[in-house]
């Protein structure tokens, strides 16, 4: 099978879905020039009516997409940088996320929000480096965070076809990654996690670009005879709770490896879910290895100290393993 970069996989999903359904439009900043590549060629293929460059008015174009969806279109809204959701936050969490229920089911909002370079790295500093998915999860958005090109295409297709608002996070650190991607359009279903590596000693729940890091740590620890089970939720909401609990039960020891802030973050949700649904199977404290609760500092050594690291993960794995449960 041919290999594509993550951004190319996204581009192919955009291309194939927009070709399939004329109701799909894509809206955002600098979409037409396709700076990074994921939107390249869309203007040529689908024209300016469906491929729309907006002013720097995120709240405006998110609300615009809501209205367009209420009137029958299927908008894709692209955020150039993930943390730009903040300037559109009311239109996202207080409008789009709530209208279907508040209106008693009179409207469906088939909107896909793609959040680019989520989490960033390498010096983009405090305001451009958040992984804002915990905010969007708390608001009830369906959220996917694919860790490979194959899943990026399949989950983007599923997100676009879902009749509800879906947030698609493209982590900065996987965008250049290459991997095998089927040519035809296909769906990776929402709400289904995947075991990325089978193990017996400790279960690591890893999200987005950290899945790759977790697998590397697992390889390393395997040399010491530690068998790590790596599970990727892929969809953060709806969460594959059965898959999660099954992964936890396998080892009874869980470390959550997540690059969003710690307090009220996604790792907290995973831990709380396990406390409720897998308590009897837990043989050690569930540990969170997350980003620290601060904006990402600019300087390399500080950045490194704030984001979750393979070292921290390895240490946490050893710690839960040492725990006599």
């Amino acid at each position, binding site marked *: 099978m041919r290999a594509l970069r993550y951004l190319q996989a996204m581009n192919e999903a955009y291309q194939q879905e927009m070709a399939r359904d004329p109701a799909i439009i894509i809206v955002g900043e600098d979409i037409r020039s396709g700076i990074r590549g994921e939107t390249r060629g869309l203007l040529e293929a689908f024209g300016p*009516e469906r491929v729309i460059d*907006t*002013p720097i*008015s995120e*709240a*405006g*174009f*998110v*609300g*615009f*997409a*809501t*209205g*367009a*969806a*209420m*009137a*029958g*279109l299927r*908008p894709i809204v692209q955020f150039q940088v993930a943390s730009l959701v903040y300037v559109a936050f*009311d*239109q996202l969490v*207080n*409008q789009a996320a709530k*209208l*279907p*229920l*508040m*209106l*008693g*089911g*009179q*409207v*469906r909002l088939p909107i896909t929000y793609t959040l680019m370079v989520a989490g960033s790295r390498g010096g983009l500093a405090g305001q451009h480096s958040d992984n804002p998915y915990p905010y969007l999860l708390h608001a*009830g958005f*369906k959220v996917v965070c694919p860790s490979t090109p194959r899943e990026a295409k399949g989950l983007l297709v599923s997100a676009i076809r*879902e*009749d*509800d608002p879906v947030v698609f996070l493209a982590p900065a650190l996987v965008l250049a990654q290459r991997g095998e991607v089927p040519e035809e359009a296909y769906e990776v279903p*929402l*709400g289904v996690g995947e075991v990325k590596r089978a193990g017996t000693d400790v279960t690591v729940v890893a999200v987005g670009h950290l899945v790759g890091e977790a697998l590397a740590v697992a390889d390393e620890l395997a040399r010491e005879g530690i068998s790590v089970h790596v599970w990727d939720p892929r969809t953060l*909401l*709806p*969460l594959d*709770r*059965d898959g999660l609990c099954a992964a936890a039960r396998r080892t009874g020891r869980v470390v959550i490896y997540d690059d969003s802030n710690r307090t009220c973050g996604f790792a907290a949700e995973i831990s709380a879910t396990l406390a*409720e649904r897998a308590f009897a199977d837990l043989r050690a404290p569930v540990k969170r290895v997350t980003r620290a609760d601060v904006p990402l500092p600019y300087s390399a050594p500080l950045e490194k100290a704030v984001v979750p690291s393979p070292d921290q993960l390895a240490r946490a794995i050893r710690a839960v393993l040492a725990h006599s449960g």
Partner: protein
Amino acid sequence: MAVGLPRTLAEGLYRRMRLIRRFEEEVAALVDANEIAGVCHEYVGQEAVAAGVCAALRVDDVITSTHRGHGHVIAKGGEVRYMLAELLGRVTGYNRGRGGSMHIADISLGIFGANGIVGAGAPMACGAAYRFKLAGDRRVAVSFFGDGAVNQGVLHEALNLAAIWDLPVVFVCENNLYAITTALRAVSKLEPHQRAAAYGMPGLAVDGMDVEAVYLAAAAAVERARQGGGPTFVECKTYRYVGHYTAERFMKLSYRSEDEIAAWRQRDAIETWGRRLIEAGLWNGEDLAAADQAVEQEIAQAIAFARASPWPESASALDYMYSRTYAGTPAWGAE
């Protein structure tokens, strides 16, 4: 003073305005009686704006509304019994009891919903209008908002989107001089319609107590939008006779004077229009009384309908959050 409008339209405007007024008066009573929960933002005094603007719209045109939305819903064709059922929290209501006063909507009538957040409906009107433009079906979207909304960022963004893409949107600013207790003159150096020029959009002001003037201004703006002429900003100078919301009647607030209120009531749009219908010879006193009587009946029946309607089932509380649900999503608060 003569009436320059076709008879059916002229009569319809009176009926609609009267229906709105009486609806709001009954709603206030039902709030006091605790039959309606929460608060309602009454439209009393502003009836000519909703009635005049919506009379210029087709059924398949769209409106976005505000926290003070009852008048818009009625004017766009909303049925008062489904509205009251919603306000009484019944499953027969427009939103199946999920929305209440601040979110009441009827998508089938192009009523995209009241909105609890000031200014939030404006970009949605742009999105709907964009769809209309793509489809080339000459439909129009009207966005209602108050004077207080002109200082909210998202309204600015929406006005610009409509302008640069020549969208078929009419922005209707209901300037009733206050945002709760805050006077417009204290938060804006210019009048709302004077903001339009900044976007390259025509802006005009009209007497919001004169339903004919409102209708004519709206009809022109709507027609312009239909023909592809782009958006227009129409400011309607109006006034709310009562408090910001039902709860204000129990507060001692002094942000406006009794004289000011009385002066505006003097110019009441409904009474004025009723008088003009008679002066113009379209109606006599009996016709007017009959019209009022019909309104009383419609409201009485609506209240009866609402009261007789069932409450929603607790078990359905999470319904409609998603069109497609998954195991455990949305989550209940306790397992």
